[in-house]
């Protein structure tokens, strides 16, 4: 990651401004909003997997937890500010506990995968079996398979009657994504971020250098969950109904696919992968010639086989090959060779 943070900030502001201006001309803002939400969700896994080397099979759990926290709190509070904050804090706290359990137990690789998968399954099964009237938190029925409809959606802080929806909600989401993107950039530039990448590359070496690997992985895991939780709350506001399918393995799988397709070890990759594939899914819904699951599966297999680095790094590489001479000085995206090593096993 070359250049300075302020440079990053300028780029992010320019690109966000441009996209906010151009995209609504082509796609309805309602659809764009969900693409942004998924982009943020992709970013959350891209951060912990691409830069921290933690392959979480249960990122959907934090997404769903954020969404459910928001809905339950919103029904009880009747205003959206506190629920938004809770929706970030609860998944982060949950992830910190789960992460501490895993990382202090020195679980790695597949075992990490199994635990995150199992925890997601437990949440999924639990939420799915809460249809009965005894499952109530304050005024909010958990609703089981049918989910929670009809909660207070986003409003201007302090005035519950002033809803933010439609186009203005799109702008809120877009700005939030830009802010989160900036914060992730800042985090990765900090010593914390560089050490996280160091841990990804060689955990033993980093711990011998005196860093507390377990605490740092736990912290990064919690940050990822916080972002996923925020995305969940934004999703809740967009969909206005929540169902347990948010916690499903299919949802987790999709997040992983977004990251793979977009490109691991980049910040932009997971965001673009998520938005692109979600839009593809939306478009596929308008045809019925080929089964959509089949296409999703095929995309994943082909990417793992032929483009394991993902689209963004590949396009960047192609760009470099085709237009090899870089302008001197401001070489923005000269990639560090180390960073390209795939996170594996």
């Amino acid at each position, binding site marked *: 990651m070359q250049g300075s943070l302020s440079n990053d900030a300028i780029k992010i502001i320019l690109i966000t401004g441009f996209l906010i201006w151009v995209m609504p001309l082509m796609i309805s803002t309602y659809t764009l909003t969900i693409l942004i939400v998924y982009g943020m969700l992709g970013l959350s896994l891209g951060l912990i997997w691409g830069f921290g080397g933690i392959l979480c099979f249960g990122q959907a759990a934090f997404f769903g937890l954020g969404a459910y926290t928001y809905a339950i709190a919103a029904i009880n509070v009747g205003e959206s500010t506190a629920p938004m904050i809770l929706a970030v804090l609860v998944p982060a706290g949950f992830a910190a506990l789960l992460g501490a359990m895993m990382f202090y137990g020195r679980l790695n690789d597949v075992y990490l995968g199994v635990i995150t998968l199992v925890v997601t399954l437990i949440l999924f099964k639990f939420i799915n079996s809460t249809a009965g009237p005894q499952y109530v938190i304050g005024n909010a029925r958990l609703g089981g398979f049918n989910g929670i409809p009809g909660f207070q959606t986003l409003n201007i802080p302090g005035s519950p009657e002033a809803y933010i929806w439609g186009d203005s909600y799109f702008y809120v989401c877009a700005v939030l994504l830009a802010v989160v993107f900036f914060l992730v950039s800042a985090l990765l530039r900090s010593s914390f971020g560089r050490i996280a990448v160091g841990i990804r590359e060689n955990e033993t070496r980093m711990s011998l250098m005196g860093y507390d690997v377990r605490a740092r992985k736990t912290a990064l895991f919690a940050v990822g969950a916080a972002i996923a939780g925020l995305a969940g709350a934004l999703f809740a506001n967009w969909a206005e109904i929540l169902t347990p399918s948010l916690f499903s393995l299919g949802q987790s799988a999709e997040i992983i696919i977004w990251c793979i397709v977009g490109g691991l070890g980049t910040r932009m990759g997971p965001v673009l992968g998520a938005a692109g594939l979600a839009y593809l899914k939306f478009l596929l819904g308008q045809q019925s010639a080929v089964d959509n699951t089949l296409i999703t599966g095929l995309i994943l297999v082909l990417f*793992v086989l032929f483009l394991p680095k993902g689209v963004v790094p590949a396009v960047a590489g192609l760009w470099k090959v085709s237009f090899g001479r870089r302008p001197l000085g401001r070489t923005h995206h000269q990639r560090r060779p180390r960073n390209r090593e795939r996170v594996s096993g």
Partner: protein
Amino acid sequence: MDLSVVILVEMLYAVASLILISSGLAVVFGMMKVINLAHGEFMMMGGYATITAVNLGINIFLAMLVIAPLVVGLIGLAVERLVIRHLYGRLVDTMLATWGLSLFFIGLATMIFGNTTTGISTPIPGFAIGNYQINGYNFFIIVVAILLLVAMLVILKNTRAGLIARGTMQRSDMAAALGYSPDRIYMATFFCGSALSGLAGAVLAPLVGLVPTSGGAYIAKAFITVIAGGPSLIAGLFSSAGFFGIVNQVFTFAISPVIGEVALLIAAVVLLRLLPQGITGKFFKGKL
């Protein structure tokens, strides 16, 4: 009294079906350290192969025990040649690729068979224990699981192929140096693993309503059982299937099937936290 016999049979059945569900995955994982996330879909295809064969008028036992394993084994062979073999040694990549395959097969099965539930009825009549009727087919599943474990043990211990397989499992480079092609051995193993998955899917088919997404119900359980079992193939499979099967059934009878499932999952989390290398990473070390 009668009830306790029924509960015992149900427990044995739960253990046996876990063994069946997990064996294909365990063989592939134990041998080649490949986690095949399309395992559930292999089982689903085993089920469809059986149902299709039965509908064509083939004897149900022939369909379950021969045709389904063969069909799925061949599909597995194709998958290994086309996809898996390019990814050996890249654990996470194989998981992702096979996850993609699982979605692909779900889509394919949906296009061929549709999402309507299909199924066949069990070939074995019900069975009375005192005042209780139980499913006679449970015994069939228990027998198949026992035979399967014994067969695996005999093949691995007493045949030349088993010896080579065990050698490759321990040190594939040495096996290669001795003139055995790991590529061929892996191919054969994957075929066997897929065939076992097909067998499991086929044998369980008469008990369930089959849809293209049925595999999803198995994969998590199989995955958990295999990982919790640890490095030894048969001891691991047996001990973790036994543990989870009993936990599941105890809570199912005491409270409800949902709590049974959740108890199984929580037991898995606790077990892996305490024994991060699986049961046989600590106990029964060096056993098969």
